[in-house]
């Protein structure tokens, strides 16, 4: 009898909870759920950034459900896979498609993972929606259901040289063709595509002088030899594409070796673009530039009204959830998921052909999406590089702040040239 009472109480509580859930869902106007697969490296060497991307996805998902009507009128939910390396990324993509039954997979942040994950997704006939990896080959393999919202590596290289030629050159009192640049990069497709594009544009379009090119594996334990070579080359600018731990190792050893260069320029949410860099050095991080999404100083009013709306909502949501300022990983993941919502809402289905038609028809000018992005996919599923507006941020007093293009920010680039290590305060 006593057990029966307990059972009745439990059933009652569950029923009330379920009823409340239904009520909340009904009040938010969502009917049913729509599940997509999310692949990010949440364990292994890439886990720090992978988790940040997943966090960005989750915050955007909740925002979409709570304030923007879900997707196709349904509550958006995730089936998450851990893409620890390319092999696991492929097997997890297969699992998400076959076991979880998702029709869309998004992720995977890293250029070392997106190729394998998208191939596996294509074999299962599901849509692959990349938000962060920049390997240019992703959208050049004839896979018609692969899309990327982020700029590709060639865009990163293009932007970096644009910044060097149009901003740094005159701040250094030189013409672009008088600048000497050294290229240093980790050796994945991310590093190589950015570096090679930058080299090509710098040489062909601006006649900049190249002092050397060096690639390394990002898990390296020592970069002293590289720094000694750089000291011998005496470049004005170091174009350094790095992951996280190698950027930290390089900066520490460059300081030890008293390697002085007038500016350091990076692209991407890893390396100098990651919060880890500031955490490692505090104010000693001052100086390097990272091409990523906008940070403090960004003038949101410069965006179009619809861009301002989602930008403010997402920044507030990230701050409320994490207690910290928004990071590049959040912005890439959130920006990509937001565009996916817009395409799904327009297509009203995940049928690949109708989805593709809706994606191709989407035409958003710059300034209308998160991060000030616009959208116009080409026939290969790559978002237009010129519409994916990017910004140069600089480490200033423990914070990555927006410094360029100057019309989008209230803050200005400092320490040009960088000067001695102990005077960058």
């Amino acid at each position, binding site marked *: 009898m006593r057990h029966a009472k307990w059972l009745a109480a439990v059933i009652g509580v569950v029923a009330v909870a379920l009823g409340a859930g239904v009520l909340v869902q009904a009040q938010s106007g969502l009917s049913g759920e729509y599940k997509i697969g999310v692949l990010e490296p949440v364990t292994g*060497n890439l886990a720090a950034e992978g988790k940040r991307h997943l966090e960005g996805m989750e915050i955007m998902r909740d925002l979409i459900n709570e304030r923007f009507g879900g997707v196709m009128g349904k509550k958006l939910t995730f089936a998450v896979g851990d893409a620890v390396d390319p092999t696991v990324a492929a097997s997890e993509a297969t699992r998400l498609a076959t076991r979880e039954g998702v029709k869309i997979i998004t992720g995977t942040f890293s250029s070392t993972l997106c190729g394998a994950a998208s191939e596996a997704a294509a074999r299962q006939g599901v849509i692959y929606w990349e938000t962060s990896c920049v390997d240019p080959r992703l959208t050049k393999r004839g896979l018609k259901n692969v899309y990327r919202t982020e700029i590709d590596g060639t865009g990163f290289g293009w932007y970096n040289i644009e910044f060097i030629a149009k901003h740094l050159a005159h701040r250094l009192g030189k013409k672009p063709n008088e600048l000497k640049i050294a290229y240093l990069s980790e*050796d994945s497709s991310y590093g190589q595509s950015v570096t090679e594009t930058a080299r090509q544009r710098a040489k062909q379009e601006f006649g900049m002088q190249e002092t050397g090119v*060096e*690639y390394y594996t990002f898990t390296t334990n020592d970069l002293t*030899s590289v720094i000694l070579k750089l000291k011998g080359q005496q470049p004005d600018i170091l174009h350094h594409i790095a992951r996280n731990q190698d950027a930290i190792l390089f900066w520490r050893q460059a300081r030890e070796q008293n390697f002085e260069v007038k500016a350091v320029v990076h692209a991407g949410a890893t390396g100098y673009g990651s919060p880890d860099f500031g955490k490692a050095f505090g104010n000693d991080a001052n100086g390097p530039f990272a091409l990523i999404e906008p940070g403090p100083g960004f003038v949101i009013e410069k965006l179009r009204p619809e861009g301002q709306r989602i930008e403010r909502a997402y920044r507030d949501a990230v701050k409320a959830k994490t207690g910290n300022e928004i990071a590049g990983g959040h912005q890439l993941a959130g920006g990509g998921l937001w565009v996916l919502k817009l395409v799904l809402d327009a297509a009203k289905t995940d049928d690949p052909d109708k989805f593709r038609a809706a994606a191709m028809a989407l035409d958003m000018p710059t300034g209308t999406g998160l991060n000030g992005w616009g959208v116009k996919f080409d026939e290969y599923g790559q978002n237009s590089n010129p519409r994916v507006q990017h910004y140069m941020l600089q480490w200033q007093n423990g914070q990555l702040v927006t410094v360029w293009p100057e019309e989008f920010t209230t803050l200005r680039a400092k320490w040009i040239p960088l000067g001695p290590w102990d005077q960058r305060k």
Partner: protein
Amino acid sequence: MHVIPQLAVSTLLLGGIYALIAVGLTLIFGVMRVVNFAHGEFLMLAMYLAFWSFTLLGLDPYVTLVLSVPVIFVMGWSSYHIVMRPVINASHNVQVFTTVGLSIALQNVALVLWTADAQFVRTSYYSVVVRLGSAAFNLAQLVAFAVAVLATAALFAFLRWSYTGKLMRATAQDRQAASLMGIDTGRVYSLTWAVGVACVGVAGVLLAPVYPVYPTVGLQFVLIAYVSVVLGGLGDMAGALIASLIVATVEVVGSYVIGTAWKEILYLLLFIGILVVRPAGLFGQRGAEAIGT
């Protein structure tokens, strides 16, 4: 020519780090004939120990070093009794899978407990640079190198001249004969495992002020430690030290002369080349992997 002193110093310091990790590994292999694939994860745990001691208690890593040796020793002792003892008489395959499993389990425990975010031990002297002529180096790395040399010498002396060291060597030479002579080989194994883990624990605490701390940090170092151990001769303490310095020389000088992209290729080619000529490694005893089993 002006870069030669710096290349030499960088080689010594990097080699010191590799040696510090390799000596514990080679000790465990030399006595127990077990390749410990979880070695890098014990390094990671020690780095976290230094990080949390610094963050929560304000303890300098060098103070932690003294306090942590018994803690890490007990951790090693416990891990032997919980994980290794049941498989100590099993085949090499079972032992390999056990240590690989232990490695994955420890990585994921760290990931769950402390997240994947990199952590940093920023001591007041983290940026202190010592300059010697045209060479410059980090103070913490210099300390790590000095301790590596001392630890190798101390281990060598311990095995050579102490009674317990003799028991270990006897067990390494022939486990059954040692058992017949009244040596408690189970106890020797647990002691060896614990001392090996304590060695890599010392390495972890010393590396914490130099490198970021994160759950997979061990992988960054341990592959090179395996190369050093095999190159120097499995189970040979001095061999591990010298091989670590050789690997570091190839890495640093090769990077400078040929290119950084080539450094892994260079030391692995050297590794293969030496094993072709001397299959037991530079100082190893032919058939060492089978002795004592």
